[in-house]
């Protein structure tokens, strides 16, 4: 009994795809993920494009953001506090994002935990840019401006995601911790 034509072609295409995913060079596999992360960062900076891009969450972006921030902030600190600040920034970012998410969940919001952590982490990217700028410009007024712009940008980026998912009468209660989270990070960047 012969296989019908269409099924033969379908199975051939399937085999090709499976083979290619395993046979492709590792650089191609890694680059695909890197491009995805890059696209998400761009989406956080420029609010145009695919709205559902951040729905397939990943934690690479928050990790990259966290590492860059910790390294920058701890390198600028007093000598005996370098380790403390590195660990502190790490803890603040991950536990802060976790606590803000749990708070939104407990208030009745319909978010998935890791997706919310992912969005909060990615939205820190403007503040990372401000931190990088404040390494080069040490004047207090310039740094305040940079940090303020970064803060407003980050808050807007994450609000757009979280605010439609919270019941209306508790919106302020759910959004205030987001504001507090970004305020802490901004202030840590400002005083270095």
């Amino acid at each position: 009994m012969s296989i019908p034509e269409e099924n033969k072609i379908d199975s051939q295409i399937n085999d090709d795809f499976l083979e290619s995913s395993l046979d492709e060079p590792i650089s191609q596999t890694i680059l695909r993920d890197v491009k995805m992360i890059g696209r998400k960062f761009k989406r956080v900076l420029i609010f145009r494009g695919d709205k559902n891009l951040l729905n397939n969450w990943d934690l690479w972006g928050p990790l990259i953001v966290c590492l860059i921030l910790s390294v920058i902030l701890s390198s600028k600190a007093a000598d005996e506090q370098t380790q403390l600040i590195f660990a502190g920034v790490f803890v603040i970012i991950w536990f802060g994002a976790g606590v803000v998410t749990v708070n939104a969940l407990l208030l009745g919001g319909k978010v998935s935990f890791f997706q919310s952590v992912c969005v909060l982490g990615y939205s820190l990217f403007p503040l990372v840019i401000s931190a990088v700028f404040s390494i080069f410009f040490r004047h207090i007024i310039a740094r305040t401006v940079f940090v303020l712009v970064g803060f407003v940008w980050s808050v807007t980026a994450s609000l757009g995601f979280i605010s439609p998912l919270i019941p209306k009468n508790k919106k302020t209660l759910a959004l205030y911790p987001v504001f507090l989270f970004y305020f802490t990070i901004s202030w840590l960047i400002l005083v270095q």
Partner: protein
Amino acid sequence: MSNQSNELSFSSPFDQDENENQQENEFGSFISSGNEFIESNSHSPKQMKGFGNNSQNLSDDLNIPDFNPELELNENFDPLDENAPNQKRKKQPFWTLSYYEQYFDVETGDVLKNVILSCHPVKGVSLEKLDLFGPFWVTTTLIILMGSLGNFSSYINSLKKQEEEVGDWEFDFRKITTASILLYSYVFVYPIAVHFIFKFVSKIEIKIFALICIFGYSLSAFLPASILFAVPSEKSKWLLLIFVSCVTMLAILSSLNNNYNTENSHKIQFYVLLGGIGVVHFIISILIKIWFFEGN
């Protein structure tokens, strides 16, 4: 929750068990006034779900009240009464996340009202609706404010000193860590101790979450105080501290007094314990001043 959802939810177990349990069938006809309405509505799979499920989505648990087998024995049961005790949410064990949802059932107005009441020396915090949102976020805000403004005040102090260069001032991250340990234990760990002390010494049962509410909201007066601590004068800092500390202490003691001072004969022990709580609060305030807002 509307009446509609209550009726729908109560209809599902009766419909399921109609053939099995005679008693429930009789009770089903007792609420015949709503029967037509109930039967005309479709029973979605969500409502027919077993009550023992731990659903992934927390909002599912919220809409399905507990099926209480003692319903038919309760003469005062009114299916349309939203406040009847049978309409409670399903009780989860305290280690699950959904258990704490009941403590987040507040709105912005409630939280603000409690924040303002925490400075009222006679009325104190209202304990009708216990919530965890207020204490936790007031404490966290205070930690962040103390960390930032404490560093700011040390920066101002370094500005005033003539010998040192301003560039020598370094940001002290330890202020944040110390603040968080001090305040989180005062608001979340210390109430557990207070609960047990009250239980064993004066036999009064004070809910732990009520104590968390009282102590958490009492810290909210320190938020504007932290901002005012930026004034460099040492005398003004101490005056401000004593004022805020006394106002909040009175509020704590009055809310405890109003709610838990019953007619049993342990009054002396009760007042002594209240005095102890006031002293501890005063000590915490002094620590806040000394560790975070040093004078010149």
